[in-house]
């Protein structure tokens, strides 16, 4: 319990504070409010989207599964009918309903822009019509190419079928023709999106989002015993900086280098706090812990344990065996060899680099109560190295002649940022993307376990005095309670996912309660948290963490080990132990 008194002075420094166990904690402590607010948003999302799983949708899924089963028994490769059934299944999403579209529209962020930042907020009817016309022409051309590619693919498939798929040469020709058709399908889909451009005005929706979030957080703030109006006033400024962060992140150049909103949010916060200083009236709303913890509870719902099996055993080995080995080895290396003074900085960087970048850094930093400067440093290094690796790795893989599936697995397990993995994987090939993305997604799920274990280790071992034995009750008192909310959200949503079955859960949970609701708020809350970190950080304190370059050395050494081990494990799993799965991807 002494931690709470000591942490009172460290409140502004650490990412998370600890909770005590009294009944009044349930409505007085930030940890608990983050759980209530997070659960409220998750429940609303479920109420909106679960009923979308109708009998009609079930019927469509069953029909597609029947065709997939039939086709998998008919040919030794994925046929055009197999892919068509899959495409039909993939299009069934709760976010495609009227309700889903409306929610996405209301909660939309600044859009992509290249030279005029106002394009992020407004597009007039004339401009939309001009873009639609030019994109529409390209869409029709792409559609035409797709039909022709489909005809050729069906022809090649029929020729192979005429020989009962016993002729290897004809089978290979059919697979190649089908691959070409799939590329054309993807191209059509991209052009269709561009042709569907509509005029927009984001300002009213952004104001509405600000009001909703101010009320959500403000009510909790008020019940915790703090002034509501002062919070809401300060919140408007923090929100404005968050909008600015999203705006710069959506710039086309920054977007393709993978420099996302976390970096911009911290940067703009730092600029303000280290020039004119964070205004006094804003400070009541500079609540990093409050925003981050609530965001983490929402993130918990996206940690679905069923996804671990998405790619089968090879993926589990690459993501769940290699990652913990790299994490623990890097942490040990940082403690014993490099001798980084701060354990929390060490574990945050180690998790950031070995698991999945910014999201892992947030969860780990919160679990071990790292300082804001430490999280800032970890996030900054991750963003820089992600951009570098995203550019270099695909070029290296192509130049050396590494098979694309192996390359995809390698990138998925090593490039920090999830978006950069998708970009680098897709750049190689669709198959590389599938493997890279799935491995990264399995690593994303690992965040839950890492955060829980780090929180437990810190409370039981690190934070105790030398010689002190910590009882189970004491561990409970000190354990950051929001981590429980994070884990409970994960367990509940994982159970709902399993209960509904993968196909229906894809429709109403993946593309419903999560992508259509909770993840929108999660993104905003993390952005608000990073803005708050920037607004509360002194740049001089931040630079002191660079001393000796130890964090950079740790990152580079850990990432080098990660690159070597991941490549070896991926090769063994995908090419020696499970070549059958690799051949069928």
């Amino acid at each position, binding site marked *: 319990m002494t931690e709470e008194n000591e942490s009172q002075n460290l409140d502004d420094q650490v990412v998370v504070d600890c909770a005590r166990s009294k009944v009044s904690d349930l409505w007085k402590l930030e940890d608990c409010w983050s759980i209530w607010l997070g659960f409220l948003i998750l429940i609303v999302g479920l109420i909106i989207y679960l009923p979308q799983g109708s009998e009609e949708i079930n019927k469509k899924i069953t029909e597609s*599964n029947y065709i*997939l*089963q039939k*086709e*998998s028994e*008919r*040919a*030794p*490769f*994925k046929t055009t009918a197999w892919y068509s059934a*899959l495409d039909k299944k*993939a299009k069934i999403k709760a976010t495609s309903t009227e309700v889903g579209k409306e929610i996405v529209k209301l909660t939309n962020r600044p859009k*992509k822009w290249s030279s005029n930042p106002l394009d992020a907020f407004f597009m007039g009817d004339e401009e939309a019509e001009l873009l639609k016309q030019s994109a529409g022409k390209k869409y029709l051309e792409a559609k035409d190419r797709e039909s022709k590619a489909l005809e050729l693919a069906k022809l090649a498939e029929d020729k192979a079928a005429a020989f*009962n*798929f016993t002729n290897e040469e004809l089978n290979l020709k059919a697979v190649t023709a089908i691959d070409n058709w799939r590329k054309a399908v993807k191209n059509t889909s*991209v052009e269709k999106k*561009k042709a569907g451009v509509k005029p927009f005005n984001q300002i009213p929706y952004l104001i509405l989002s600000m009001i909703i979030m101010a009320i959500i957080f403000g009510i909790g703030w008020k019940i915790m015993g703090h002034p509501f109006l002062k919070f809401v006033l300060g919140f408007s400024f923090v929100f404005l900086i968050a909008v600015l962060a999203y705006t*710069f992140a959506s710039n*086309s*150049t*920054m*977007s*393709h*280098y*993978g420099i*996302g909103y*976390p970096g911009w949010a911290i940067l703009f916060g730092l*600029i303000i706090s280290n*020039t*004119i*200083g964070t205004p006094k009236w804003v400070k009541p709303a500079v609540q990093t812990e409050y925003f981050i913890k609530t965001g983490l509870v929402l993130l918990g719902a996206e940690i679905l344990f069923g*996804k671990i099996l*998405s*790619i089968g055993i090879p993926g589990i080995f690459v993501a769940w065996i290699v990652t913990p080995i790299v994490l623990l080895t890097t942490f040990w290396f940082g403690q014993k060899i490099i001798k980084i003074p701060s354990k929390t900085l060490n574990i945050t960087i180690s998790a950031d680099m070995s698991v999945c*970048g910014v*999201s892992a850094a947030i969860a780990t930093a919160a679990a071990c109560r790292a300082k804001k400067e430490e999280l800032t440093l970890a996030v900054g290094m991750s963003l820089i190295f992600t951009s570098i690796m995203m*550019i270099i790795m695909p*070029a290296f893989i192509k130049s050396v002649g590494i098979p694309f599936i192996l390359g995809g697995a390698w990138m998925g397990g090593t490039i920090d*940022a*999830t*978006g*950069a993995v*998708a*970009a*680098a994987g*897709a750049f190689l090939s669709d198959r590389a*993307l*599938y*493997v890279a*993305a*799935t491995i990264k*997604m399995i690593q*994303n799920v690992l965040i839950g376990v890492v955060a829980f274990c780090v929180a437990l280790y810190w409370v039981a071992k690190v934070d105790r005095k030398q010689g002190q034995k910590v009882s189970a009750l004491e561990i409970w008192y000190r354990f950051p309670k929001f981590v429980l909310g994070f884990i409970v959200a994960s367990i509940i949503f994982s159970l709902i996912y399993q209960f509904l079955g*993968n196909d229906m859960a894809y429709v109403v949970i993946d*593309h419903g309660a*999560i*992508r259509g609701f909770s993840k929108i708020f999660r*993104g905003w809350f993390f952005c608000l948290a990073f803005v708050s970190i920037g607004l509360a950080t*002194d740049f001089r304190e931040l630079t002191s963490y660079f001393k000796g370059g130890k964090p950079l050395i740790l990152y580079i050494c850990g990432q080098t080990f990660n690159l070597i081990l991941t490549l070896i494990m991926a090769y063994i799993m995908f090419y020696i132990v499970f070549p059958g799965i690799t051949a*069928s991807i």
Partner: protein
Amino acid sequence: MKPKNLNGRNRVLKKIKDYFYLLVSMSVVTIFVLFLAPCMDDAPYVKPLTNFIDDEEINAGAIYYSDIEEFSIAEINMKNTIDYLPCFNPGKKEEKK
């Protein structure tokens, strides 16, 4: 961070200096985003990848799998590949005959 006990004139000068630094910082960031960074796009190793990302509209800055559509596509493809793995064996069909 603001030094205390400044007289009125010094306070005003300090404030002007602070706003000046703010303006310079934001200008540097804007120049980097609008002018310097786009110049890197033409580098030979960078151009193919950046053009690809722009054409495909991939959100390369996403921090979690649910932020990015490509992950959903990848997952459904992989899952259905594992669940409905093409397993046709021409030998078996000839045996039945």
